[in-house]
């Protein structure tokens, strides 16, 4: 079933939003305007957008340290994200989370996560909640290829399968985990193969194509909503930049490899398809690009002007109903 034109355009808009957001973060970091750890998701936009397109705020996602993409794809507010990166009181996490912990519980975004693999059992648990309540929601769990070797992956996928939970495991397979190439750490070449050990469908997709990602994920999501259990979708993509912004030279991989994969840009690919098929002309796409640029600029402006957190806020948001300032060590 081909996607309607407005869906294709919306996917373009969302991928562009991620790309521009991340490029802006990169610049801001290089100019010293934002600090902390920052893992750019550039190159991986099609995975997030393909998987999240069609989800509603009732559906859950979990994401990773490299999570801006998934979070934006699920509809997060760019201003509150940028405020957070600027460490402002108005940020999603009131300046206490930063890039690795952005969440929006009103949108079902159960958070980026700094612990590799930790989102897997969390998404599984969210799916369990759905099942216990008899709802038709779904949980989409994003993780990197490096996380596949964590115990969390094994325990989470087995549990989700045994309990037939409505969760879709989406691997951002960008070929690298920090400085380590996948072949050095994966016993089998195809991440989708791992699904067999858990009795669930496993599919690999070339994530240059956002519609291919969407098709695979949408089928798995539909299956999950029907109560037929979890799936694993291995999205083959690539990390365009260093592991984090501090890892600029990337001595562990070649300029050629980088250039070759950057040539396979999911946004360019989608753009060309839109133009080729007549869904959009260059002008329309430029309008979208400009609109998005406007959103990002507005977000940056807002963030710059936003108030910093108060010193007191360090003691807030720890417990419900318990003030930790009272009682000293208690």
């Amino acid at each position, binding site marked *: 079933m081909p996607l309607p034109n407005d869906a294709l355009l919306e996917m373009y808009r969302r991928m562009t939003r991620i790309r521009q957001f991340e490029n802006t973060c990169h610049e801001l970091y290089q100019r010293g305007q934002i600090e902390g750890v920052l893992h750019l998701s550039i190159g991986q936009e099609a995975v997030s957008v393909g998987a999240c397109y069609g989800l509603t705020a009732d559906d*859950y996602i979990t994401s990773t340290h490299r999570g801006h993409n998934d979070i934006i794809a699920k509809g997060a507010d760019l201003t509150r994200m940028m405020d957070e990166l600027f460490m402002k009181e108005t940020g999603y996490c009131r300046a206490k989370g930063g890039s690795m912990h952005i969440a929006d519980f009103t949108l079902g975004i159960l958070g980026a996560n700094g612990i590799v693999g930790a989102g897997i059992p*969390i998404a599984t648990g969210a799916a369990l909640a759905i099942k216990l309540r008899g709802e038709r929601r779904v949980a989409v769990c994003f993780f990197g290829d490096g996380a596949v070797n964590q115990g969390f992956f094994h325990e989470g996928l087995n549990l989700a399968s045994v309990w037939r939970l409505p969760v879709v495991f989406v691997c951002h397979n960008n070929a690298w985990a920090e400085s380590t190439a996948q072949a050095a750490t994966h016993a089998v070449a195809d991440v989708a193969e791992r699904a067999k050990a858990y009795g669930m469908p496993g599919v690999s997709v070339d994530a240059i194509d956002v519609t291919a990602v969407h098709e695979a994920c949408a089928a798995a999501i539909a299956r999950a909503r029907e109560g037929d259990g979890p799936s694993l979708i291995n999205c083959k993509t690539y990390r365009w930049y260093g592991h984090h912004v501090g890892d600029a030279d990337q001595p562990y991989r070649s300029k050629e490899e980088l250039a070759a994969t950057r040539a396979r840009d999911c946004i360019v690919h989608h753009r060309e398809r839109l133009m080729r098929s007549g869904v959009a002309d260059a002008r329309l796409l430029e309008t979208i690009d400009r609109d998005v640029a406007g959103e990002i600029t507005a977000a940056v402006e807002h963030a710059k002007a936003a108030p910093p957190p108060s010193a007191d806020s360090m003691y807030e*948001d720890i417990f419900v109903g318990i003030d930790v300032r009272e009682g000293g060590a208690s």
Partner: protein
Amino acid sequence: MTVEMTVREALNRALDEELARDPSVFLLGEDIADPFGGSWKVTKGLSDKHGIARVRNTPISESAIVGAAVGAALAGMRPVAEIMYIDFLALCADGIVNQAAKFRYMSGGQVSVPVVFRTQGGSGRSTAAQHGQSFESWFTHVPGLIVVMPSTPSDAYGLLKSAIRDDNPVLFIESKMCYAQKGPVPRAETAVPLGLADIKRRGRDVTIVAIGAMVAEALAAATELADDGIEAEVIDPRTLVPLDKVRILESVSRTSRAVIVHEATKRSGWGAEMAALIAEEAFHDLDGPVVRVAGANTPIPASPMLEALHRPNAARIAAAVRRLLA
């Protein structure tokens, strides 16, 4: 009106009532379902009554148990996860320490994580070094986590109910040597509030702060000491976080002497924090050193004979008090 029951039965009753009261409460853990009813039989009868959807046996996957409980709590449920031995938290603490305890903070207060992690600890059953530890101090070191450690049937009952109803993540630590202990529990449904210490015995000469299975030993020591005319006050904090510092320090200010008792290894055990707090905030009330009577700084030996040497008991507590007052 009270009814006599064991700690095990009291915990079972609390779980049963909370399952009946709130459809968002459910239990998960290894071997908790009927007819087995849990390795410690705390969940006996609950899956038969409330169904195996709400009292769920899991694979042996502690990280997934803990993580899934966190995820379900984030998604609006009130999971109660059982980890069979506290020793196993060494392999699955992430969900408790890095996730449950921090989600509210890391998200700027967007969410609460109403999950209870039930587990049990302590030596005394010849289960050796990997099945008899007491890690409560680890978790009191983790901001964002409530840590409960009941010693009597009525506290076990009332605190577990409060823990399940609380919106914060709670580590609920049972003591294997307490399960069979009997005592009165209110017949009417009641909850014991978190954060309140209980003075189990009044006295003027020394304050004994004891937790878990050591509360009974401290009370036995107090009885023994009373024969010598020494009146020991015995306080059970019941919740280690938040701690009822006021009540404890008030007691120390009256008695001027403090002895802290737990079965965990002494070094960096919870008694270290309690002693440090007294030394820092009640120093001028003290007439003598703050004494800790605790598990030996050794792994727990399998031999019952050696294990008995590892664990504090009434005699060792009484001896420590006598030395302190000498």
